[in-house]
Structure formats: C-alpha cells, structure tokens
C-alpha cells in the first residue's frame, strides 16, 4: 500500500522518503522501505522483512525440539566432530533434524515468510521427525522381508473361489448388522443433531452439553466400542456377536451423523425458521416444519455414507469378535489359509463396490 502510493513524479524521483518523510503522500506508518532511488515503474510491492527477534525465538524452538529428540532417541548413531583440540560428538539423527529445521528457517527468513508460517513449517518438520522416529520409519528392510509377502500375494492371485459361497451366512449377518445399525443410528443421530445445533436446540446449555457428549462418543474409535460391548454382553463365543456389533456400529454412527447433521443444521436458511417463529410454532413444530425439510437431502446422503462405512467397519470388527464376515476372515487368517482369506477379501471389495454403486444410485434418485 505504502509502496504504491508515491505515484507522483516528485516523490518517486526523489530518494526514498522513509528517512525524511517530507512528502505528504507517504503515510507516516510507511512499511515498505526501499533504499536507493527508484522510479515509479520499478517499484513493486514487496513484503516487509519479518522481525528477527521472532525468528530467533523459532531457532530456540528448533533447539528445544533437538534436545527433545536427543533425549527420546533410541538409536545410538553418534556423529564425531574432531575440532583439533577437542572432539565434539552429537547424536546423528537429531542433528540432521536440527540442521533441516535451521536451513528451512534461514530460507524462510530469506524469502520473507511471515512468522506464523515459519512457525508452522518448523512445527511440521518437528512433528514429522517425531512421528517418523516413533514408528521407526525405514524402507531399507523391504528387500529382505519381501519373501514374507510373496506367498500372500501369490494366494491373492489364486484365491479359493469355492470358499466364497460357504460364508454366505456371515455375509448376511454383516449386511443385516449394517442395515440395523444405520437405521437406528441415523434416527438417534437426527435427534441428537437437532439438540446439538444452536439453531434448533431449546437453549445454549443443551446444545453445548450435547456437543460435548457427542465429541466423547466420536473420539472412541469403532473398535473401542466393539471391544467394550463384547466385554459388556459377550461376543461371538457366547453367540451374542451380532448384538455387540450392532451396538458398537450404533455408537459409531451416532457420532458421525450427529456431527455432520448438526453442522448442516447450523447452515440452514434462517427464513423458514423465522417464519415458523413468527407464526407461533413451538420448538417441535419449528424443527419439524422449518428445519427438517431443509436438511433432509443431507440427512439421506449421510445415511447412505454411514451405511457404506458400516459395511467396511463390520467386516473389520469381526476381528475383535462381533460376528459377521470379519470373524470368518480372522479364523482363516489364524489358520494361515491365505487362499480363503483372499477369497473373502475379494468378495469384500466387490460388496463394497456394489454398495457404493447402490448408494450412488439412490442418492441420484432421491436428491
């Protein structure tokens, strides 16, 4: 802004006015200081130099991260730095991390990147280093361990097709679980979303409380719910697998539907709501007649999305004993019969694709 303002020849031809702000056009808080004489044609807006102090703090942050990496590192690679009179030593990997961070900071300073963006970059590098160190990221072992993968991949190329039909009961259970959990979960999710959104809930306290409950429900992963309900009421071993699975999927669905739908309700057109209020509708009538018709397409679409998620999840949840196709797969996996596992997995892919197509069809038909 300040750099474009000296458009008159008198101020542009003169040397930079920042030292002596005599010209009236230049505002006193001129940011872009450019030394040397410059004509109006060559002056381009340029970001200001970020403050060095903040960058020094970022360097301090990088050093702190280095110390943290050093303390928590597990590999003992040591880098020795002979300086003649004394030999310095430093842990290899954290040192590399520190160097990367410092180089990036220097580049950011050179490119006049803002402090917040520079902080974000450093935090990103530190986070990636930490995550990589925690999972011991390496791709060097792939050639040695490739022999473990080969038999399984061979099995996948040659699945036991006759096995697919023998687990049809398990498929029925899986799909039934998904249907029941989707329908009940969407119904409960609708009610919760109505109470969670400030637009449709009776008061602010209710909406905050429901939102808190919902985020607790959502933060426990589906397999956590499955393990909980298997422990509560018994799993496949007691013949209660489907019940536990449905309850687990139910909680999973409630979290998703309530979250997505309450955000949709937040964004509804306020006109019908105001009209309902003005004509004296109570809360239920208002939600039923002014809000529900607006969010119904979204609701149906979320329901179909959740149904698709349920098919995948209930296949996976069989691993922890909730019945369905996953338990059959786990059984074959424990027997090392990869041909049968491959058959189930291929059937799973086909079923997921079919459900995807089906829900796409319904969505296009309804919306």
């Amino acid at each position, binding site marked *: 802004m300040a750099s474009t303002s000296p458009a008159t020849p008198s101020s542009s031809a003169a040397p930079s006015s920042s030292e002596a702000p005599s010209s009236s056009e230049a505002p006193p808080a001129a940011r872009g200081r450019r030394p040397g004489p410059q004509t109006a044609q060559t002056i381009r807006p340029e970001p200001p130099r970020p403050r060095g102090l903040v960058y020094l703090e970022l360097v301090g942050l990088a050093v702190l991260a280095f110390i943290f990496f050093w303390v928590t590192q597990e590999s003992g690679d040591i880098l020795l730095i002979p300086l003649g009179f004394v030999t310095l030593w430093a842990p290899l990997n954290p040192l590399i991390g520190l160097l990367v961070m410092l180089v990036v900071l220097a580049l950011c300073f050179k490119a006049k990147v803002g402090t917040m963006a520079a902080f974000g970059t450093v935090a990103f590098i530190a986070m990636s280093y930490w995550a990589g160190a925690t*999972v011991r990221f390496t791709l060097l072992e792939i050639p040695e361990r490739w022999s473990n993968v080969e038999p399984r991949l061979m099995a996948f190329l040659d699945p036991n097709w006759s096995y697919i039909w023998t687990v049809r009961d398990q498929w029925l259970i899986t799909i039934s679980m998904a249907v*029941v959990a989707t329908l009940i979960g969407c119904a409960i999710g609708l009610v919760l979303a109505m109470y969670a959104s400030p637009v449709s809930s009776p008061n602010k306290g209710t909406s905050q409380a429901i939102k808190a409950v919902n985020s607790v429900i959502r933060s426990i992963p*589906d397999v956590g719910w499955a393990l909980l309900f298997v422990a509560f009421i018994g799993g496949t071993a007691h013949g209660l697998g489907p019940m536990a699975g449905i309850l687990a999927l139910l909680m999973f669905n409630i979290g998703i539907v309530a979250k997505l739908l309450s955000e949709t309700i937040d964004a509804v057109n306020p006109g019908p709501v105001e009209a309902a209020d003005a004509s004296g509708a109570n809360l239920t009538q208002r939600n039923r007649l002014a809000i529900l018709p607006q969010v119904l397409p979204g609701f149906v679409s979320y329901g179909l999305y959740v149904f698709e998620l349920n098919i995948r999840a209930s296949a996976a949840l069989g*691993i922890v004993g909730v019945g369905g196709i996953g338990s059959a797969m786990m059984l074959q996996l424990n027997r090392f019969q990869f041909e049968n596992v491959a058959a189930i997995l291929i059937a799973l892919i086909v079923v997921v*694709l079919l459900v995807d197509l089906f829900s796409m069809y319904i969505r296009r038909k309804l919306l």
Partner: protein
Amino acid sequence: MSNGRLNAGPGSTSRPGADNDPDAHTDPDAHTDPDAHTDPSDHAADATAGDAAAQPRQPGQPRFAPDALDRRPVRPSKLGYNIGMLTVGIIFIAAVYGAGMDFGALLNLPASIVQYGQLMAQGVFQVPDETVAGYWAQSFDAMFESVAIAWVGTMVGALFSLPMGFLAARNMSPLPVYIVVRFILSVIRAVPEIIFAIAIMLPLFGFGSGGGGALAGAMALGVSSIGTLSKLISEAIEAVDGGPLESSRASGSNQLQMIRWAVMPQVMPEVVAIWLYRFEVNIRASAILGVLGAGGIGSLLSVVFGAREWDRIGIVLVVIIVVTMVVDQISAFIRHRVIHGGGARSDGGETPEDDDGAPDPGPEHGPRVEDDPAPKENRAAAGL
C-alpha cells in the same frame, strides 16, 4: 361457451399438466386480446372444445379447469413416500431377523454398564501409585504412537495424493490419463485398509509395537489414504477459478508454470484442510490396525480387554478421549486458520501470510462474528 367448459370442470383438474399448459389460457372471453380472435384456427379450436364439453373428448384435446386459480391445490400423492417407508420397514425387520440378535442380552446391558462403569471409574479416579502411574504412562505412549502412525500415514498419502489429484482432475489432464487414474483411485477406495495391512504391510514390515508393526500400520493407512485424498483434491482442483489459468496461459506459461502459479495458490489451503481432516480420520483408523498387531492404542486396547482389567480399560479410554479431542481441536484451529487466513489485513496490502499461499479472506469471511475486525485494523495501523 364458458358455461360448457364449466360443466367439464371437476374431472379435468385431476389430469396432471392440464393446468400448466401456458397456451391453454388464451381465454376466448377476454375480448381485450386481439390475437385470440384474429387467429382463426385458435378460435376454431376453442369453439370445438366448448361444444364438445358434454360429449366424450377427442384424444389430444385439452380440457381445463373452469377457474383453476380459485381451486385449492391438489394434495400431491404420498404413494411413493409410503411405499418407500414400507420398504425400509420391511428391510429393517428382515435385517433384525437376519442378524440373529439376542434381545435377552439387552436386558442385562444396563446392569453391566453400571457395574463395569463403576470399575472403570475406580480405575481412573484412584490415587496413582507407582503401577497406576505406569498404566497412565503406557496408555499415553501407545496413544502417541497411534498419533505418529496416523501422521506418517497421512504424510505418505499426502505425498502421492497431490500429483494423483492433478492427474485425476478433468481440467488438468488428458482424458485417457484421467480415466485410468480415476479407476485406480476408485479401486483403492474400495479396498479397506485392513486388507492392505493383512495382505502386504504387516508381513512386509513385521508385527508388534516394537517390531515394525507401527510402520506397517502407517504404510497401510498411507496407501488407503491416497484414494480419498486424491479424489477430494481433484474435486478441489476442478473447482478452481478459471481466470488465473487463462491469464497464465495468455502470458505464455507452460503446464507446470500454470500449475505452480495459477492452480496451487488457489487450491493449497483446501488441500491442507483435506490432509488435516484425513489425519483425524487416520487416528481413529489406526486403532483397528493396532488390534491386528500394528502397534499403537489398538494393540494396548486388545491387551487390556483380553485381560479384562477394568481399571486399566478405564484409563486407556480416558487417554483416547483426551488425546483425540485435543488433536481435533488443534487440527480444527489450523484448518480454520489456513482456510480463512489468520492475520488477514483489511487494507489489502501485502501481508507476510500471503506468501505461503494463504488465501484472501474470501466472501465467506465477511459475516463471521468471531473474526473481530478491530484488532486487525489496529495491527495493520501498527504495521505489524
């Protein structure tokens, strides 16, 4: 003539579309309309319609409501809706039978929730002695390992998803490439991540928390992230504003330069938001891989549930909830900042944040209440 048409009234309104025909409303009695009378064929058609009212109508001849504006609107048929609801109900009941649920188990559920919930609460709220503190530390370690798995998985997915997203965007790549890449992506999306884990990653990298299982889980999450991420990114790319593209082409840039200077600045905030969203999803997904032996919180969960140590289960659940909610909050903050721009100046000048591709505040920035404009004005005036 109008009398005759009146007699034809009641049955005719049920004909769908009869009222909607705009030509039908050339009323012959409206003498102010010269065209209706100068056109002989039109007049003749009207006359026959009026005369033939009492007789059976010829096919193809419109019959009209006498005064359609006075009639109450006909209720739309609810047949389709009812049939749909009935179908859903039948499917629901069939599914209940098909799943073979035992409703007797539901009767015991409240009692066992209370009983085990008390045990868990005792575990959480007990005064931490050395072993209990160890449980807490172990749970946090496992949860952080899950976060690391999700982060590495997201990084792997992000690395591949950006080029794949460009290849899968219709306005960026030729048709054959587009079709092939789209097909690959939809196959990847159809394969659940446990399949990648079981079939390839776990045998490739090893099982267990320490023995490479975490890396296997991260790679499985990464590969399965590519599908969703690329699809979302390609949709973002397809929705870019065409103006910068045209101007970069007009000034003679090649494809790469156009992507760098016209497309990337537009889509980058959205892409970062998509990556962060996937990171949250991956944290939850890593739990199920952990049960398979990929380390992280899932492994710990299956261990403590296998041993049925309810106090430890309570501690693990609390740790999961706390860490997940904190990560969600941070990620939501970053997403909001990336999309709406943090220190967006109101004077429209060059700001430091503009350099990393943070967008202009955009039209949706205006009505937001939480972005108080006053401090920004102050900061802009102070020249920060």
